[in-house]
Structures are given as structure tokens and as C-alpha cells.
């Protein structure tokens, strides 16, 4: 008989963030520690142009291609300038307002807050990015 369960569940900190996201009217993306997309809520589906029930989880290389991130002058932002990427690198919260452009060419000014998920054990288990429409809009 196996000594431990072979089934791997997500840490409850990830699960609870999903449950919260599922109740919110603002777009929320939840990733693992390297940026693979574990969950996005219904409002976030509008940004991605995809439905979570269709895509399930996505590798970072896959979901990061669904929109472009640009500054006010239309210049592409480096990944290291994006809040979520910085959170993944540094395990700290970040905030930035910038422009995103969907694959269909639709541009939108967006503010992003990101934070690391660090559980009771003090272990970094993932990150959350919340997209806001800027208050000056």
C-alpha cells in the first residue's frame, strides 16, 4: 500500500483565492510560481477572449500571447516591467497602469495590481493579478 496519496491538490491558499475570484466582478488571474495560469474568472475571460471551462489551465508561454502590453506611446513593454512578472520574480506586490491590446487589435487602458500568495507555512505558492479599469477613465 502506498504510504502517501499520489494525488496532488493545490495548496488551499490557491484554492481560496480561486473561490474569492469566482465571486468578484473584476478580472482576476491566478498563476503558479512560474506564471502558468491556473485559473481566471468570468470577467477575465473577456480580456483573454477565452473561457476557462474551454481552456482549463494554460502554460505561461500560451496565455501570455493572448494580449500585448504597451506603454502610453504604444511601445511594447518588457515582461520585467509588468506587475505580475515582477511579483513572480520578487514575491512582492506591484501596481502599474498601461495599455493592453488583444489579438483582435482592441486596445484598453488598464491598471493591474498583483500580489504573491505566501501561505501560513511562509512558502510562495503562486500569484494573483487583478485588472482594473483606471479611475480616471
Amino acid at each position, binding site marked *: 500500500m502506498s504510504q502517501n*496519496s499520489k*494525488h496532488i*491538490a493545490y495548496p*488551499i491558499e490557491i484554492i*481560496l483565492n*480561486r473561490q474569492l475570484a*469566482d465571486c468578484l466582478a473584476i478580472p482576476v488571474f491566478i498563476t503558479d510560481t512560474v506564471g502558468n495560469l491556473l485559473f481566471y474568472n468570468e470577467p477575465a475571460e473577456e480580456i483573454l477572449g477565452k473561457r476557462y471551462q474551454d481552456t482549463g489551465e494554460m502554460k505561461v508561454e500560451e496565455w501570455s500571447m493572448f494580449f500585448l502590453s504597451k506603454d502610453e506611446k504604444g511601445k511594447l513593454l518588457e515582461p520585467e516591467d509588468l506587475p505580475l512578472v515582477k511579483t513572480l520574480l520578487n514575491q512582492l506586490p506591484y501596481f502599474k497602469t498601461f495599455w493592453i491590446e488583444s489579438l483582435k487589435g482592441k486596445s484598453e487602458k488598464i491598471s493591474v495590481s498583483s500580489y504573491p500568495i505566501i501561505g*501560513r507555512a511562509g*512558502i510562495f505558492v503562486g500569484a494573483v493579478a487583478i485588472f482594473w479599469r483606471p479611475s480616471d477613465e
Partner: protein
Amino acid sequence: MKITLWGVRGSIPTFNPSTRVYGGNTSCIEVEEDGCMLVLDAGSGITNLNFSNNLDCPRIDVLLTHLHIDHIQGLSFFKPLFDPTKEVHIWGPHTHAHSLRTRLGRYFSPPLSPFYFRDLICHLEVHEIGNSSFNIGPFTIQSAYVIHPGPTVGYRVTTRSGVFTYIPDHEPALGRGGLNHDIRWLSGSELAYEADLLLHDAQYTEEDYIVKKGWGHTTMEDALEFASVTKVKRLLLMHHDPTHSDAQLDACYAQLKEKTAYPFPFEMAVEGTGGGGGGGRPSGG
């Protein structure tokens, strides 16, 4: 693995004629294998533990799921803690804010207690665990945080004779969509997966739960569904609500049997019985 249920009541000890069958003591489970003992939680049921007829091992391990009062209130009456010849190990959930010893010290100090932690004269060791794996004698133990207010873990105990999972306080259905059937997104599923026996929180009826969402407990229906999703082989429902009489628990059980058709046996846990079969009433099938 011999399992004895010394306390299966939730929240507060409840002794009156209407709780005589299922019992009124709060959570405490004894697990024995090869003369070694684990004590899961230290509710009021711990006072029923009998140390005279077992224990080849010189140590006793008390594994706490969390520090809500119904799970630790028996510690003050746990005789080995006051015996200098005994080696007692207390295991409990880690949290960043305060050590387990500090948090237990709140209970072992006035006005809640007439004595302090330092007055415990056994050889005492305190271990902080989270999403952990560790061995105690013949037991291999996996712990994991589960959804319940405050730091709370469940335990998966494995010996050569089987796998026993203990999650007495748990609200896996918390959230808009209720219980998630994708086990990767289901709190506690890693502990329960394919266990031979699951002893799980089932404090509420569906009616109770309408006004008690977020209180940290499970409906009987969700406990059954949780066991089904995690493919356990047998389920005992515990942490009975203190307001539920024997007659009400019997009626709940009859309703569950009537409206469900799970492939595994399930029963209501009964204090003083064993978990290896006949640990509940009435017999499930």
C-alpha cells in the same frame, strides 16, 4: 490499525439523555498499531483514554488539527502531561504569527487554566507542521492545511494495515460553486484520496448550512460527496452538531441512505466505538 473514537461531538461537550447514543465528548481519536499510540485531537474525549492496556512505546503523540477550544480542552486533563516518566509530543499547525507553544500557552495559563505550560512536568516536545510528512513509530503521517477558520490541518495516517484520514473540521464547499469536483481544487482531497477510512466533518444539515456558511464546517451531503470524489472506501461522519439529538442524527442518516446511492459504506460516528468496522450506527452498506 486499531481506531477508537473517544469523542465525535462538535463545538462543545454535550451530555444529556438525548445525546447518549452518539456521545457528547468533543473530538479525540485513538489510533494504535504495534503497541504504539497516536491521539488525534485533545477534545474532552481524551479523558476516556486508557493507558494501562497498551503502549510498548515510551512516548505518546498528540496530533492537533487546530486550536479551537473543542479540540484542545482535554489537554488540561491529559494525565501523561503531568507524569515526569512520560514523553509526550504535541503536533499542531504552524502559523507565522506565533509559535504553537505560545498559542497553546494561552490555554495553559490563567484565567483559562490554573497552571502554566511550564508546569507540565512530562518530557514535552512541541512540533509545528503544515503541509508535511513525518514518521512516528509504525505510522507514516501526512498533514495538510484545510479550509477552516484559523490554521487547521487534516491528517492522513498510513501503516502497513491501511490508510486512515482524519479531517474533523473542514469546509471544502466554501465558495460560490460549492464543492469542486476537480480534486486538484478540492481542499483536503490529497489527504483523503483512496483512504480505507475517512473520518470527516459532517456537522450541518443543508438547512443548517444556509445560515452557517463560512463557519468552517460541512453538510452531511457534502461530506458524502467529498468522500465520493476522493474515492474513499469507507466514511464515518463526525463532529456532530451539539444541537442534534440522537433521534435527529438517526433521522438524518435514514434520509441520507434513502436519497443517495454511493458505492462506499458510510455511518454516523459513535463515541466509544472502533473505526475499523462497526464504528458507527447504524451499519452502512
